[in-house]
């Protein structure tokens, strides 16, 4: 029988991580995501599944612990919020360069700088355009419910291991803090050393006599070889863009106007769609679930159907640039957002739609 629980998004992440058979979590406290580590520490999974949970001395140390754990083929994760993610970017770039899988959770808050502890979606650029140095991409999942917070732990690890690349769950303070019903995933076994050696032959587990040495590094001083490495990364990224795009359509079939929104903004937009339709406006919502790879093909498809698109984000206009690239001028695309931790109401969205597009 399915067990329905009521909990915060942050708590759901923690429970899902234990149940997934995660080997290690390394974190540093920061609002509004501290419940993730608090829940893990209270659950004491090292006594049940053997999962290691460690409070690091900094976000920098935490991501480098993740680097070390991932290098040995383990399922490891960390979580933080915007300023802390900025600190982790060096490590994230190294992990992309060394092709290591892991899950990173960002429960976004408003910036720049120390900013605010209230929710925001202003780390879109940071996450999907790079953030750290070098040409790399981060698989980015944007949950819009507590259920998806729980489900995306498994999805994040599955994608990270399938492509040997870090994956990020890009949530925000609303999704992290709000309580909802959730069905937690079933328990899975942690991998044994034999399974790791078999499934991740690149992992450092100690060099056996009949095996070659494994070295985890992002360093290659020979430019010809470094270009080859980069070309391999890019080929992998193109493959992810081809096969891993995820999105949800809500009342899009007959839509004349389209809202594009992810995470908590998409939740608010669903209500806006309902209200608009009561008002006689045929409004739909397209919700990107993967922010990278971005669902550009489906957005391009709608560019011939709708009269305008409104990218609704809790930021000053970030995803709107990708929407505009996707439609390539075929239809008008505008942005509506609130900043600094202020969250828009459904009515504000409709007003913005009328002002900017109708």
């Amino acid at each position, binding site marked *: 029988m399915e067990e329905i629980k009521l909990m915060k998004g942050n708590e759901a992440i923690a429970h899902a991580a234990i149940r997934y058979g995660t080997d290690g979590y390394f974190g540093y406290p920061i609002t509004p995501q501290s419940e993730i580590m608090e829940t893990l520490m209270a659950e004491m999974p090292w006594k049940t599944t053997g999962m290691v949970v460690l409070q690091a001395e900094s976000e920098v140390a935490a991501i480098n612990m993740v680097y*070390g754990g991932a290098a*040995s083929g383990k399922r490891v994760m960390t979580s933080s919020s915007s300023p802390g993610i900025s600190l982790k970017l060096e490590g994230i770039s190294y992990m992309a360069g060394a092709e290591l899988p892991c899950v990173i959770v960002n429960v976004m808050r408003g910036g720049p700088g120390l900013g605010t502890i209230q929710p925001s979606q202003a780390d879109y650029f940071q996450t999907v355009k790079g953030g750290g140095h070098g040409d790399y991409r981060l698989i980015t999942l944007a949950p819009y419910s507590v259920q998806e917070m729980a489900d995306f732990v498994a999805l994040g690890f599955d994608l990270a291991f399938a492509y040997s690349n870090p994956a990020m769950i890009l949530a925000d303070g609303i999704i992290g803090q709000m309580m909802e019903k959730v069905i937690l995933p079933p328990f899975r076994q942690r991998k044994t050393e034999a399974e790791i050696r078999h499934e991740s032959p690149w992992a*450092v587990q100690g*060099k*056996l006599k009949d095996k070659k040495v494994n070295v985890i*590094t992002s360093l290659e001083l020979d430019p010809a070889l470094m270009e080859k490495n980069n070309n391999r990364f890019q080929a992998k990224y193109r493959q992810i863009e081809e096969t891993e795009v995820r999105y949800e359509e809500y009342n899009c079939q007959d839509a004349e106007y389209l809202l594009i929104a992810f995470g908590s903004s998409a939740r608010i937009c669903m209500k806006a769609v309902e209200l608009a339709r009561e008002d006689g406006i045929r409004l739909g919502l397209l919700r990107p679930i993967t922010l990278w790879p971005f669902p550009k093909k489906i957005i391009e498809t709608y560019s011939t159907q709708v009269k305008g698109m409104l990218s609704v984000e809790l930021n000053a206009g970030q995803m709107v640039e990708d929407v505009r690239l996707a439609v390539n001028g075929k239809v008008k695309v505008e942005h509506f957002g609130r900043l600094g931790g202020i969250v828009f109401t459904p009515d504000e969205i409709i007003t913005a739609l009328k002002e900017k597009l109708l």
Partner: protein
Amino acid sequence: MELTEIIKPENRVYGKPRLMNDNPMHYCPGCSHGVIHKLIAEVIEDMGMEEQTIGVSPVGCAVFAYNYIDIDWVEAAHGRAPAVATALKRLNREKMIFTYQGDGDLAAIGTAETIHAANRGENIVIVFVNNAIYGMTGGQMAPTTLEGMPSSTCPYGRDVALNGYPLKIADLLAQLEGTCLVTRQSVQTAAAVRKAKKMLRKAFENSMEGKGASVVEFVSTCSSGWKMTPDQSNKWMEANMFPFYPLGNLKNVE
């Protein structure tokens, strides 16, 4: 007795450790790294731990340590080796884990990671090569550069009014409850090499016995950075480095 009668396998008393491969080393002539690498390879081999050992290399001259010792390696970001090693050990308790770090990596950019890994009593070995200079980037001032000692970023010698004092980080680490062994060694003579190997072995054994963090500092030379011949470097090290960084055990919990 003919030479051919003497030179034969059964008379061999010394050889290159099996774990050291034949890749040409990028280290400069006279550099201490080569000897320290050899000692690590010997200790791992003597302990029969080559299939269980994972090394963590730093950013600095030893970034390519993985090219010379035939074990599994992880190359860490600058200063983060103790954090990387922390997770490697906690998630793989039966493995033998060590970091190999220079003075800039361990005592400047990675000070926080070093102190906290040591203070948590991580069951790892931290090999610390202190040559008082940034070798790889071309001889800049290190946290351990001696007062008055010139470098490319303190060309007139380290001025404590401008740069502060050289950091005796091993003394600091010895104060922490989480360390079980903090020792300062060198490799400029055969006797020093033998002594150093003994303490290195102790450090690796400690890590497998779960006694906490072991730190083996090697007071070392950098002929290129110091702009001296290898022989001059050894003499300069004995005359100038040893008085400020005296050799011996700072802490050795039995």
